[in-house]
């Protein structure tokens, strides 16, 4: 017998069976009170199962929609979190600026370091403040623990700076608050090592003495503590070269303050004028 000719009688038999059973169940339900309650309970149980199953299927097919909604919510939360984080970072950077020994000749801009290289010979850093925030070329970047770098390129919202851990940078430093002044530069080896050069031999010092910024440069304000003196060696029989253990730990650096000398342009133009007159 062909397959279709077998299926049709089977479906018809099944339909008759279902109709007869439903008729029997209805009769049982309407004639027996116990059976009515029992059947109602079974029907509810069955409905709950079917409904639960249908709900699961519907939920499965609406997962894409739910995922989209969750992604949108996630995005909103991330934005909110980002705003909060930015506010927190600004607050921390502000508090850092407040910890600095202030000088009226300088303007202070709190900043967050967004990128910092530490393992190269020529290290650099990028901060989240740019020209729109008032950052200019040759501004200094400091923390209460020392010098971080000098701004070398400025964009609208970010600035690129040469790190102190770079042989190109040399800053003017003083031994103690009233001692000799000499150039301080990175030793090129460790993250907290620097060398203070050209200290005349007649100036006495003890290992552990503090080294400060001198204030002689137009970039950094005076009296920022930089580190403590270590071993010294005489160079060419004329000057001392002193190793300095820096306070600033570049491994944990996250926030900094941009310092801008308000009178720098005036000083610079004065220097240029004086230098020109000297030449003439």
């Amino acid at each position: 017998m062909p397959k279709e000719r077998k299926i049709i009688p089977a479906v018809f038999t099944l339909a008759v069976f279902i109709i007869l059973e439903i008729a029997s169940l209805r009769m049982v339900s309407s004639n027996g009170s116990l059976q009515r309650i029992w059947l109602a309970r079974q029907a509810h149980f069955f409905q709950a199962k079917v409904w639960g199953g249908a709900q699961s299927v519907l939920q499965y097919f609406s997962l894409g929609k739910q995922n989209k909604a969750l992604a949108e919510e996630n995005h909103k939360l991330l934005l909110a979190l980002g705003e909060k984080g930015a506010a927190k970072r600004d607050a921390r950077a502000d508090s850092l600026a407040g910890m600095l020994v202030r000088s009226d000749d300088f303007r202070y801009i709190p900043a967050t370091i967004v990128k910092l290289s530490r393992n190269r010979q020529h290290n650099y850093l990028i901060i989240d403040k740019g020209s729109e925030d008032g950052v200019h070329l040759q501004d200094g970047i400091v923390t209460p623990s020392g010098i971080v770098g000098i701004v070398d390129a400025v964009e609208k919202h970010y600035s690129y700076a040469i790190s102190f851990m770079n042989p190109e940078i040399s800053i003017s430093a003083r031994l103690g608050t009233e001692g000799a002044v000499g150039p301080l530069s990175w030793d090129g080896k460790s993250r907290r090592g620097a060398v203070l050069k050209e200290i005349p031999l007649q100036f006495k010092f003890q290992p552990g003495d503090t080294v400060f910024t001198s204030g002689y440069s137009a970039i950094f304000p005076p009296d920022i503590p930089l580190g403590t003196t270590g071993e010294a060696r005489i160079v060419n029989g004329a000057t001392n070269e002193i190793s300095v253990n820096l306070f600033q730990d570049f491994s944990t650096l996250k926030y900094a303050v941009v310092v801008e000398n308000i009178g720098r342009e005036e000083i610079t133009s004065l220097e240029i004028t004086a230098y020109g007159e000297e030449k003439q």
Partner: protein
Amino acid sequence: MNRNFILVYILLLAAQMLLSDFVRVSPYVTLSILPVMVLCIPLRNSPVTAMLIAFATGLAVDFFSDGVLGLNALALVPVAALRNPVIRLVAGNEIIEKKDNLSVPKIGLAKFSTAILMVQAVFLAIYILADGAGTRSLAFNGIRFSISWIAGYLLSLLVVGFLAPDDR
């Protein structure tokens, strides 16, 4: 269906009504010859016809006895639906294809007994479950099923000679 079968069927139906109304051995015993009556409906009748007969038989018993209307019909229609598969399983496909009448000499007492026990089990399982309506314990239902199953089988063996005579 030949006239003899119809007559015997109606007589046995009346006997079942009397059995349901007047013979109450124990709440643990449900005596019924209805499954074997449905099993012995001549095989030339289609499953649909067998189901309709079973439904009418069940209703008649329910109507004329003081049970819940529809209970016997509810349990007997599945017996009719499963009749052909049970016979096929027990006696093979040949008897169904030939549309022979079912009888003990044709398939043997053992196979016939197996078929009776199977349809009795289907009938009693549904009947006891629906009759108890969730108020009886599993133990009670189990005991009722076991006793009724054996009693029903023995009773069925008594009437099977009338329902399925050897027509060779």
